């Protein structure tokens, strides 16, 4: 019992919020000062936030920007319920309870290869670290309900990426789904990789296009989560194993980023 005499210091997991900005009616951008988390974080990972108050479960939020030199992470999230509403009340200088970074991130190719990033709605934020990595080699197609829901377009442009905006109602950019410009772009120049995050029907359609064209594709999935570290087995998603059998994998640990060919889309 040699550890017996030393009390261990239990981490509080609390980090200062550096700035908080409202992007539209329901979407917020939060920058958190968490150098040791930022040092290890990679694109595609998420952090697990516990809102202050009587909450039992953490809220998984994908990482939108990793700034290692500043020691910060940027998190962009949508207010969907009471927990995210509480998180949206945080202001610069407040502390936020953050566990992370967690999960399996995106595969990064050599930077000189052209890639297409596709974000649907609140699935858009995890595309930004990829755009910042690939710069002008990246084309970003984003789909939103309407012009007011569009987020991060200037950030993508600032990263050097080409941007294509689509809206369901035609109030900004292309009127229609992200799959239309995606098909055109693939025809013009076949990308080395597709990356996507958004609603399941969008991801399924993109996965089908990628498979038909023989383009590697990674998707970031979402599921209601518990522990976030792979222990409680709550966030189940069916994935194919090497031998073709179906396995109940977990979004938090096996994902959130999956090879699109591994995902059982009807499962």
């Amino acid at each position, binding site marked *: 019992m040699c550890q017996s005499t030393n009390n261990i210091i239990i981490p509080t997991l609390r980090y200062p919020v550096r700035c908080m900005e409202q992007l539209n009616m329901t979407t917020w951008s939060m920058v958190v000062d968490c150098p040791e988390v930022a040092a290890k974080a990679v694109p595609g990972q998420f952090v697990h936030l516990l809102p202050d108050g009587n909450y039992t*479960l953490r809220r998984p939020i994908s990482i939108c920007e990793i700034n290692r030199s500043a020691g910060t992470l940027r998190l962009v999230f949508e207010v969907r319920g009471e927990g995210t509403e509480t998180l949206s009340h945080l202001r610069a200088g407040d502390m936020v309870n953050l566990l992370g970074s967690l999960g399996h991130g995106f595969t990064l190719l050599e930077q000189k290869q052209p890639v297409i990033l596709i974000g649907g709605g609140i699935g858009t934020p995890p595309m930004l670290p990829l755009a910042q990595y690939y710069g002008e080699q990246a084309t970003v197609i984003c789909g939103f309900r309407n012009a007011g829901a569009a987020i991060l377009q200037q950030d993508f442009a600032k990263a050097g990426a080409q941007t294509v905006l689509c809206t369901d109602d035609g109030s900004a950019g292309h009127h229609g789904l992200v799959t239309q410009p995606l098909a055109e772009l693939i025809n013009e120049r076949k990308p080395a990789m597709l990356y996507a995050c958004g609603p399941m029907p969008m991801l399924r359609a993109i996965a089908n296009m990628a498979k038909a064209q023989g383009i590697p594709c990674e998707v970031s999935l979402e599921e209601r989560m518990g522990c976030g570290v792979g*222990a409680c087995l709550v966030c189940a998603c069916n994935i194919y194993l090497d031998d073709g059998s179906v396995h109940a994998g977990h979004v938090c640990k096996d994902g959130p980023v999956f090879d699109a060919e591994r995902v059982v889309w009807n499962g």
Partner: protein
Amino acid sequence: MRKGWFGMADLSVTVCGVPFKNPIIPASGVFGYGREYAQYYPLSMLGGIAAKGTTPLKQNGNPAPRIAETPAGMLNSVGLQNPGMEAFIHNELPWLLQQDTVVLANFAGPSPEACAESAAKLDATDVHMLELNISCPNVKNGGLAFGAQADTAAAMVRAVRNATKKPLVVKLSPNVTDITEIARAVEAEGADAVSLINTLLGMRIDLRTRRPILRNNTGGLSGPAVFPVAVRMVWQVSNAVKIPVIGMGGVASGKDAAELMMAGASAVQVGTAVLTDPYAPLRIVQELNAFLDENGIASAAELTGTMQPW
């Protein structure tokens, strides 16, 4: 007597002859087989670990969503997803047994014969204790099917008891008319201890879709919301049986742990709090120790069953 490592009080307890460094044990289901939490702290700091409930064969569990937050708690409907007993014994248990903490192998199955077979396999290992789960509310075969009535619970325990000499803990459900009747039945069949409470069967509905939030429709309620139920049932059961009671149900602080021990628990499992904070079991040990020190109580074991009812 060794001194507790968090402070002055002696945190050690003994349950069924098995010594624990402290009474705090992550409950089955929230802690997997321990590997995910070993990256956060040495598992040797825990009193013990109740490993994920394991069935004879691999099970994929229920479809997602499997979780929903509720006031001061949550519902889950994981449905005993696990790699099967052989995989547990060969791939997980050897590592778990090297972590210098007490390991409780939680297991369930579709019949008394199947559970007896699992118990025999576990009996041949170095695992410290067996925790027979007859109370999972999220599986159709097994689980609560056996734990809801005294006669089926007894038949299950009888079969398993004949298959192992290891300390046998039987995990009980609160979803019964009289939990003391079930506890007495499993004690009569040779259970060495009982653990309680498993989750309370519950349900939530998405008002927009008019569908249950959980894909399994119903799930098990846990977290601070169920703590008073746990205190009441631990008290009732500890008065009804002579074997030790391992208490659980919504424990989120050292004071909660002390309360459950006063109600009659010899050790305390921590479930949902681990999802809120991976460090919860360590924090609870520290808080329990502080409680003992502040109140001049020399050892955690002294708390058990000391509550004086009106």
